[in-house]
Every structure is written in structure tokens, then in C-alpha cells.
């Protein structure tokens, strides 16, 4: 039995043709095969959201997806958010509003906020907190993360804050 399965996957706009073991998790593909170590492993038990990426446009915990399931899919990681050296407005929000301390949760947190704002460009504070409910932060107490999301929402709607 051949153990390897061919997959084709687009990550941050670049297409890869790979052969992978079915048990390879998407997060390990990203970190260990593609060397995109911005996506973190926190709990490894589907709880903390540190491994969150966009999978076909929607946030997903990449520690709970097999790479073979992402065959033919498009993945965006934290590395894929900036454009031509310009931070994504959500990244800028985390910078301006001090949305991180140790930074461990940050890549997943930012991707979740991007997902939220894609669906809901003008969220209430409660909607922001619900939007990041799959991401745990052990440092900030979330307050500055909420502010970062509000900053980004205003920027993306073209309102200066």
C-alpha cells in the first residue's frame, strides 16, 4: 500500500503539488513542509485557536484538519495577510492598539478577526468577542484585542479613528 497521497494546495497565493501521509495535519504541513511557522500550535486539542488559518476563505483550526482534506483548497496564513510590505488593517490594529503581549495567540487571533470582519464589517463589541471565542489569549485579557479589531473595522470601512 502506498502511504502517500498527492495533493495540490494553494497557500498565500502560491500553488504547491505535494505527496503527503494522510495523517499529516494541515498545521504540520504549513510549519514543517512549507516552513510557514507563523501559524502556531498551542493546545493541539482543537481548543485554543493559535493554529487558525483561512481555509477557502473561512477560519479553521489547522490542527484539526488533515492536509489531504485541504486538497484543492486555498489557505491563507498570517504570512499571507500583508500586501506589498503593507500590513493588513487587522495587523495594523494589533500594532496600534497593543493587541498582543507574548504574541503566541496573535497569528490565530488576527486570522479570526479577519474572518469576522469579512463577514461583518461593522461588528458590535459583543460580536467581536463572539468572533474570537475560538481563540484563547493568556496574556492580554482580550480588551486590547477588541480595540484592535475595532480599529481595523473602522480602517476597513474607510473611517479614520
Amino acid at each position, binding site marked *: *500500500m502506498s502511504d502517500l497521497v498527492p495533493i495540490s494546495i494553494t497557500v498565500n497565493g502560491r500553488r504547491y503539488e505535494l505527496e503527503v501521509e*494522510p*495523517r499529516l495535519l494541515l498545521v504540520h504541513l504549513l510549519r514543517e513542509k512549507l516552513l510557514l511557522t507563523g501559524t502556531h500550535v498551542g493546545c*493541539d*486539542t*482543537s481548543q485554543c485557536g493559535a493554529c487558525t488559518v483561512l481555509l477557502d476563505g473561512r477560519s479553521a*483550526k489547522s490542527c484539526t484538519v*488533515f492536509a489531504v482534506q485541504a486538497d484543492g483548497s486555498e489557505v491563507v496564513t498570517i504570512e499571507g495577510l500583508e500586501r506589498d510590505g503593507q500590513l493588513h488593517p487587522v495587523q495594523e490594529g494589533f500594532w496600534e492598539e497593543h493587541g498582543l503581549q507574548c504574541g503566541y495567540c496573535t497569528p490565530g487571533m488576527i486570522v479570526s478577526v479577519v474572518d469576522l470582519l469579512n463577514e461583518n464589517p461593522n461588528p458590535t463589541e459583543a460580536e467581536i468577542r463572539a468572533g474570537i*471565542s*475560538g481563540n484563547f489569549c493568556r496574556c492580554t485579557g482580550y480588551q486590547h484585542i477588541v480595540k484592535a479589531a475595532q480599529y481595523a473595522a473602522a480602517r476597513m470601512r474607510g473611517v479614520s479613528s
Partner: protein
Amino acid sequence: MIPTKFAYRRAASIDEAIRLLQESGGEAKLLAGGHSLIPLMKLRLSEPALLIDIGRIPDLRGIRERDGLIEIGATTTHHELATSELLRRLAPVVSEAAAEIGDPQVRHRGTIGGSLAHADPAADLPAVMVAIDAEIHLKGPNGWRTVPAESFFQDLFTVDMQPDEVLAAVKFRPVWHAAYAKLHQRASHYAIVGVCAALAIENGTIRSARVAVTGASTHAQRLPNVEERLVGRQPTQAVIDEAASVAGDTLEDVNSDIHASEEYRRAMVKVFTRRALERAVARA
């Protein structure tokens, strides 16, 4: 954490999935959203030799209305349920309950079929399906079979489904006077106690009542003594309070774990039954 080795096949149709299940002689498992199965495989609590991915079978996905029934394909995600215009119009309780599952990431991947087939004692949708009297449609080597949700859920992680059957869809009639009330575990959002109440109210009288609980015991089940105290009466606060006051008294094997003791769960079954009934009535 790395699962044990397994082979992977992506099924193109329901029939191919059934055939692969049969050929495997019990060594295979279906993979839908993976949000119950993959965590178990990482802990090596589940070690299937073959995973049959049903995530891309077109016939298994989507929400439709047909012949007065709402039909939801098994691999429809919780997010799709939560944001469905059709469900918000014809069965808002299903959308509301799905919107309370886990977190956004879990809702983007997890599916209704996976949730029902897995039958976690703390899962939300089983209670909703029992309360709204949904039919579970299964397909196996001998064709189709329909099971009422009420008898589908049998015990802890145990449902009326054979190893070579696929849960293809659920079907139910439109339902308005229904609500789901849940006490969630703060980290995972699984139900410590969840209660779904579905009422039919005509001319100010409760014509029928189905009330189902999850999280409290081994599996989702009805609360017959609550229902009895509602049918034929007017949906007043006094009637609701009286019915809720006996909620859970018939339950055996009430869970006691790190999240909540049996005593606390029993108390919360009453509180959340009252809330579900109040909301179902307010909607009517």
C-alpha cells in the same frame, strides 16, 4: 499529537462510501468535518485503518424545502445552518442552536450529520432534532431507512445506525414555536445542560409539546412529565413554571463531571427548561 497511520479515500457518492465501508470489514470510519473524530484520533482513542472522506459528496450537502418538509444534507456545516435564510424563516430554532455550537472555527468545519452520528452526550443538535420530531434518513447496502430522532439516540455515543450505513439527511416540518436554551461550558461551549422546547399553540391553547434535553444524561431524550403538564393548557407563566418544576425528575444516569455535579445539572435542567419554554411561547 499524531494519529496512527491510516489510508485515506475520498468518496464521490453515497453509494461509494457505503461500498468502501462494507469492503473494510469494520476497519473504516467516515470523515465529515473531523471535529469530533480528529481530536479522538490524535489522542489515539480512535484508530481506524481507513478514513472515507464524505466531505465533498454533492448530494450530502445543503438545505432545501420539498413537499412541505425541510431537508438538511448530512455534511451541511453548523455555520451554514446558523446563517441559512430558509431555516430562519421556517425553523429558526435550528439556526439559533447551531449558532451556539463551539466557536466560529468549529462551526465552519463541523457538520450536522457528524454531530448526530457521533451523539456526544453534550452535543446540541440531538436535543433539537428530538424536540422538533426530525426524521433521520440513513442509507446502507440494502437501501434507505428512516428513524425518528427520538429513537435514533439510544445511549452514550450510541445511535440506531449500522457500521455500513451513512447518515444522509434529516427532514422535519417547519416549526416556529420552538426555542433552545443552553448552559454552555465556558471553554468548549458544549452543553452542560441544553433544553429544546417545541410547541404547537392554537387559539391560546398548547396543542402539542415536545421538550428534549441534552448534556444532562447519556443521550438526548424527551422529558415526558414536562410535556404532560403543558398539553391542553394555556401557555401562561404559571403553567410554564409548574411544568419546568418537574423537569429532569424522570432522568436516570445524570452526568457528574469536572464541569458540573449531578445536583447542579438537575437544578439547571429545570432552569433551562423554563427558559426554553418562555422563549418558545414568546415566539408564538
